[in-house]
Structures are given as C-alpha cells and as structure tokens.
C-alpha cells in the first residue's frame, strides 16, 4: 500500500475526501434572507429620513449608512452580532454591517492593550484592506476617467 506520509499529493486527495462539505443550500438561503433583510431595513430607514426628517433623496444615503453602521456596531458591542453572523455568513458580512462589525470588534478586543496602542492602532486591522483597496481603485478609475 502506498505510504501516504511520503506522498503529499495523494495525502491531500485523502484529506479533501474526508473534509465535510459546507451546507451550501442552507448557507445561501440564510445569506439571501439576512442580507436581503438588512437591505430592506436600510430602505425603510432611508424612507424615514426622507419622509420624516426631510432629507432630500440624494442626501439621505449618509444618515442611512451611519444608522446601519450604528446598529451593526451596537449588536457587536452587545455580543450578539457574532452569533447571528455564524448562521448568516455573507448576509451580515457583505452589507455595511460587516464593515461596522470588523471595526467595533477590533476596537473592543484590543481595548485590553490600552486606547492608544490597542483601540487606536488596531481598530482597522480587519477593515483596513477594504479602505485601502477602495481608495486605490478610486484613484485608478478616477485617473483613467480624467485621461479619457
């Protein structure tokens, strides 16, 4: 019998076979329902800002995003967000709630190392790449648009 301990490729084949498959149907359904739900909530909040607070439709996006960020942050601080996210997956990670969670969870976690060295410097440890790549993309696309 082949000694798999000397054959990485064959071993990896065996490992792949034994790995349980994620329950795709459940994960996709949860992501759809929770993600759709959060966006619908955002739509509702936006309508509230337009109809009750008198924001113009184009300007209502700012307070709406800030509100959803607040909600995501609060759920994170209360220790509830990770329990929802475990089931919702992309449903909570892809909306801006995920962005808020990555920042607030980092801020909370590194509080033990102090506010300057912990909270301050590590707050963007997870969200940083989203900001960096977003800015780089905007720079490149902006540059291309001025050159065209």
């Amino acid at each position: 019998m082949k000694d798999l301990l000397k054959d990485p490729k064959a071993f990896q084949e065996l490992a792949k076979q034994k790995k349980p498959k994620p329950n795709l149907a459940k994960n996709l359904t949860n992501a759809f329902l929770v993600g759709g739900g959060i966006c619908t909530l955002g739509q509702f909040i936006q309508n509230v800002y337009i109809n009750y607070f008198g924001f113009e439709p184009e300007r209502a996006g700012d307070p709406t995003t800030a509100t959803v960020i607040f909600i995501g942050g609060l759920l994170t601080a209360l220790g509830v967000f990770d329990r929802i996210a475990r089931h919702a997956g992309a449903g909570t990670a892809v909306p801006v709630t995920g962005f808020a969670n990555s920042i607030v969870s980092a801020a909370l976690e590194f509080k033990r190392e102090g506010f300057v060295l912990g909270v301050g410097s590590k707050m963007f440890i997870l969200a940083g790449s989203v900001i960096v790549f977003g800015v780089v993309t905007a720079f490149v696309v902006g540059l291309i648009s001025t050159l065209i």
Partner: protein
Amino acid sequence: MTSKLGKQTFNFATKPILIGYATVAGPKEGQGPVGSYFDKVYPDLIMNEKSFEKAERLMMTTAVDMALEKSGVSRDQVDVFVAGDLLNQIITSGFSALNLGAPYLGIFGACSSFCEGLLTASLLVDSGAAQIVVSATSSHNCTAERQYRYPTEYGAQLPPWSQHTVTGAAAMVVSPQGKGPKIELATVGKVMDLGIKDPFDMGSAMAPAAADTIFTHMEDTQRKPEDYDLIVTGDLGRVGREILVELGQRQGYDLSGNYRDCGELIYSKEQTENAGASGCACSALVTLGLLFNQNYKRILVAATGALHSPTSFQQGENIPTIAHAVSIEFPGGGN
C-alpha cells in the same frame, strides 16, 4: 537510566510516577460530558480578571497549586517547572513560572504541549537528578482566537472542519517515588508537512504527525495497537480522526477499535458546532479527567500540535505539525 528504543522512543527505566495532578476548565468544558471530573470549573471566560490572558494565567497557576496540594508537595520542593501554551512567547507559562518561583523550562509544542511537557518531566526525573518536576499546560478560547484568528466579537462564519479551542489548564507532578500512574515510554515526534495550508483545517494538517509518531512508536517498541487499552490523539477532531484511521489501515495498523480523539470527547453532541475541540488543554483535560478514571491498564496518549503562526500563514507557508506520544501504565488497572 533512560534508554532509546528504535528511532524516536525513550524507555524510562525508573517509570516516573504521576503523584498528583489537577484540571481546571471553563464553562463550556464544565458543562460537557467530562465536566464532573475537573477539579475546578470557572463560570465564565473572564474569571474576574482584567483580560483573557490574565484569566488563562489564573487557570494555570490554580492548576499548579492544586496539583501540588494533592501531591503533598510544597513549592520549594519543585526542582523544575516545565510548561507550555499557545500564546506568543508562551507568556502564560512564563508568568506562571514567576508565580511558582521554581526553575523553569518553557516549551512550545502548540497543542502537543501536554505530552511534550510530560515526557520532558519524565526525562528529568528518570535521569535521577530531579525529584519533583511539575509540568503544566493551558489554553483559552479567547486568547487563541484573538492571537491566531479574529477579534472575539467578529462575525466570522467558520467552516464545518474548524475546531473550537478549549478553555482550561492542567498541571502534573512527576516524581521517582510515590503512588500513581506511571510513565513507561515516550516517543518524540518529528515535524511533518504534507501540504495543508488552511489554518482552519487543523485535523488534516495534524493527522500525518499523529500517524508518523504513533506508527514509529509501534515500530520502535514492536507493539501493536491492541497492546493498549486505548489510544488517543489530542485534537484531530472528526476529520483528522477519520484520516488517521485510514492512514493506519494503509500501514497495517488497525485503529478502528480502541482509538479515540480527545477533541471529540470533551464536548457533547449539542455543544459541538464543527469538527470538535482543540487546544493544549484538550488532551490534558480529557486524559487526566476522563481517561485516568476509567480503570485502564495501559494507554497511549498522542497529543498533536500545529507549529504555524499567523505570520507564516500570511506568507503563504504550509501548516507544519507535530505529535508526541506517551505510554502511561496504571498499576492495579484493568480486570
């Protein structure tokens, strides 16, 4: 005098004795099937301390104090303190050593620390030079998460092959004379790498190390799996365990009967989200808690560890792993 058998196995002539030991655990472990065996269970993860790291330290120092008390040994009798944990610079062990005030050897075997510590202690005692050696290990779910993976409140969806780090600590007192289980043999493992890159897939990464060490142990000692009442691995989880059984079949070792994995024993079915438990404390708590209370005659404990770091992973390296095996005899055990 210790002698060497075959390639990697050490035979302890004096059969060092575990004259006392203590186990301390977190709430989830306390609520699990092994919970009633632990000496102390904490009701929450912060344990009235200012950080999770300090809580883990509290667990290790508590386990050490309890083990010394149960052995009737005082602090100044300790010749050497051998300890290891998962944290950077093994701070839990270092600070616990400071608290204990004994000469200290820090070890890093990741989740294989339980066996690495036990075999190191046995080597020291069997040399004839040390009379009392204390070995300890610990792990804490939150300190491991925040160091290796994500902030504890981060909403990550973990894959079904991932494992949950155990919160707990254990300490053992090893001595040439006294009453208790005896350490007869230990096989020191080699680092293995079969190309697994996913730090959430510890089972697949560690199974080869467990296989290499256990099979080498069998070759070195000319024994078979049936010579043991039970063979356990530290934390291969369901995925790693299945892989190990298959690897065994291919090498002519039948592990289907008397082999279990501690990572699958410490939590109940309802408590298990994914592939099982992991962490230094996993093998320690299950072995000292559950297995030492089962009337076995002889067991083989193979604790498994992953030797990567977040840095090595981010730099694209594979997950290198290791396993150390210790054969423990129970005088008066069996039918």
